[in-house]
């Protein structure tokens, strides 16, 4: 980097370039930074998408030259799940915290409509976790375990024809969220010529469908050439194997067939070495940076806009920005960002009010409903009461009537009794008179008779 170039470039930044008259020593800065990173360790997260049995775990084992303990999964999962495992690797003094996320059950279902959704949800969940951490008041970003997916290895089955619809659909949904590197799995089933045609077909399909796969960066001179060549070899046709065979006088990783031995690390046999080189040796840092600077920022922006937060814009902010509109450019830019925290706050306030308003409204509604119900119940009860009352009255009346009738009857009876007694008395009188008219000697007999009649 010629200093004159730098000087010209930075004249535009209002900085004066300065020439040093001696050794200052800040050229050790990159080393300081690197040392710091060594102390902290690196994080790398790989997502492998592919059908069951296509060779994802084997490839990862081969890539990192170790055997990650992974069980073989069945074909009978009802839906797609993601399984993440984290490993601590160390090579010389570099510590790598590697997380491998596998899709379990991808492409196994009869109805594959929802296959890609769990994957999208998982990636979003990792972004969300990071966003939450970033937005916390008390946060600790520098020792946060970054689980965002840095690269997605998409395993294409070696049919030799074209992409499957499921593949296309999945990749289309993922290309704005993660760096996709498509690989052709089990490449030892395709011959060289078929492979060429297959690759061309695949790339053209991807391009014509607008799927943006990860392109190796070509802006830095040191690696641009090699990256450019590698870009031309995409998708990589890989073979994975952890078994070692003797070829010549070396032990190499290979797969043995009756008709020959496919060597994993032989560039003529497959592109495994290229994949390893690109993924790990040359572009790991760039993958991480793209994830953070592009995909995560996009997610963050969408999420925040979705929630209604806005950077200051002249049309949706009250008095403050209207006043600032008249200012000069640089002042405006400062005050532009000046109102940002407040605008966030104001938007939040507005949202909060809105939310509370809704809450209030709901409460009111419920209260009204409650009151209504109570009223209704009361009315029903009153109605019932009235009915009962009416019944009671009715019964009472009946009772009265009965009574009166009875009274009448009794009176009648009594009258009858009196009449009967009267008649009886009258009859006796008559009898007594009849006795008195006959002359009788024996007054005594009369007396007796009187006595007996009296009796």
């Amino acid at each position, binding site marked *: 980097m010629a200093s004159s170039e730098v000087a010209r470039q930075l004249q535009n930044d209002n900085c004066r370039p300065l020439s040093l008259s001696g050794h200052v020593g800040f050229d050790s800065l990159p080393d300081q930074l690197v040392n710091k990173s060594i102390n902290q360790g690196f994080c790398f997260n790989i997502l492998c998408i592919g059908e069951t049995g296509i060779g994802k775990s084997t490839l990862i084992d081969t890539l990192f030259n170790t055997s990650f303990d992974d069980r073989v999964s069945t074909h009978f999962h009802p839906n797609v799940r993601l399984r993440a495992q984290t490993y601590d*690797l160390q090579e*010389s003094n570099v510590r790598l915290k590697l997380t491998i996320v596998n899709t379990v059950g991808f492409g196994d279902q009869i109805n594959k409509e929802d296959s890609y959704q769990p994957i999208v949800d998982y990636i979003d969940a990792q972004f969300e976790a990071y966003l939450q951490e970033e937005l916390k008041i008390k946060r600790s970003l520098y020792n946060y375990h970054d689980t965002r997916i840095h690269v997605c290895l998409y395993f294409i089955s070696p049919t030799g024809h074209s992409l499957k619809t499921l593949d296309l659909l999945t990749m289309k949904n993922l290309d704005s969220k993660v760096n996709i590197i498509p690989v052709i799995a089990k490449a030892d089933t395709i011959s060289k010529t078929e492979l060429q045609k297959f690759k061309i077909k695949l790339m053209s399909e991807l391009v014509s469908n607008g799927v943006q796969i990860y392109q190796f960066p070509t802006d830095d001179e040191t690696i641009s050439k090699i990256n450019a060549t590698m870009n031309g070899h995409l998708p990589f046709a890989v073979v994975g194997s952890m078994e070692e065979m003797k070829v010549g006088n070396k032990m190499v990783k290979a797969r043995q067939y009756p008709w020959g031995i496919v060597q994993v690390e032989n560039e003529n046999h497959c592109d495994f070495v290229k994949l390893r080189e690109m993924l790990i040796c040359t572009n790991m840092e760039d993958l991480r940076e793209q994830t953070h600077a592009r995909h995560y920022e996009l997610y963050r922006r969408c999420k925040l806009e979705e929630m209604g937060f806005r*950077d200051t814009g002249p049309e949706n902010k009250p008095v403050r920005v209207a006043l600032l509109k008249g200012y000069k450019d640089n002042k405006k830019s400062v005050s532009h960002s000046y109102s940002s925290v407040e605008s966030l706050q104001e938007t939040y306030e507005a949202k909060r009010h809105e939310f509370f308003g809704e809450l209030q409204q709901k409460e009111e509604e419920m209260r009204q409903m409650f009151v209504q119900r109570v009223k209704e119940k009361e009315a029903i009860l009153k109605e019932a009461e009235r009915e009962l009352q009416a019944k009671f009255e009715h019964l009472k009346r009946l009772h009265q009537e009965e009574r009166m009738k009875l009274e009448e009857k009794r009176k009648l009876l009594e009258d009858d009794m009196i009449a009967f007694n009267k008649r009886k008395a009258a009859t006796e009188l008559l009898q007594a008179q009849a006795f008195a008219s006959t002359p009788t000697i024996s007054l005594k007999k009369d007396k007796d008779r009187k006595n007996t009649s009296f009796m």
Partner: protein
Amino acid sequence: MHGREKTKEGSSLVPGCTSMEEKPGQPAPEETPSNAPPGTVGRELFGYVGIEAVLDQMRIKTMKTGFEFNIMVVGQSGLGKSTMVNTLFKSKVSRKPTGPGYEERIPQTMQLQSVTHVIVEKGVKMKLTVTDTPGFGDQINNENCWDPIVKYIKEQYEKYLREEILISRKRKIPDTRVHSCVYFVPPTGHWLRPLDLEFMRRLSKIVNVVPVIAKADTLTLEERAEFKQRIQEDLKAHGINVYPQEDLDDDSDDRLLNKKIRDKIPFAVVGADTEHQVNGKRVLGRRTKWGIIEVENPAHCEFPLLRDLLIRSHLQDLKDVTHNVHYESYRVQRLNESNQLAPSPAAGLLGKHEMESNL
């Protein structure tokens, strides 16, 4: 955090950390692993993979983007601040003419002046901003003379916070936060003055303060040692945490290194930007009647220590402490402030999330 086994061989063994908790592989529909990372297991690499190439990648990337460093020098006039900055960066960073016949008017109020330069050394590009504070402590009544400085530092934090909080934010947020504040203590030889104490007390809470004894060529070695001792005691007695802060030491290596530095704070420095001939070599120094004081000679003054601390070994650390500690505490305070008016946007976003997910 991980254990720090640093081995020198190629591929090495790492004892596993804790037992790995895997998500059970039942057919029950559990979608995604929880956010808490499962326990990790160390794995042995059978051969060379190439992971350490990531260091080179990182190096290339940082060389391309360049570094930013902002330093502030505070002290009374005439203590040699501008000369010191020039000596540190071996160039005419501050264009203060020092010849005789130059009258510098002491400004009525203190103003801060920032100058930005770009310096390149061996392909490493650094954007250096030096903030000078002429007029500090020069008035008769120096009360609250630290206020403009505190305000300036907080303004830079505020600027960064605003950029960080934007919805569509820049890829690389321009960093104007003050990474270190070099405070020049006049070489009285006695104790720290109330102004020094007050200033350092206030500022060590918001920025990395590196105190230095200015114009140390007026003190003999014994006087220097005693002065330092007294200053260290003073700082400890008043609870002033200068850089490197004790509570920020991560592990024993750091602690050892930083303890050595802490024993030597404050550095007794001499600044010079003219070269002289000594023993056939050209050295930076001050020529006096009784000898030439070589600035870069550790026997004469402690300028090399200061330079090493600021530039060669702890520059990245200064930036990291500023970003991870001082900026974060400013952010917490700022967001809590707007919390008192209304719950903070961040908490609001957080709370909204929870509320939304519950609803």
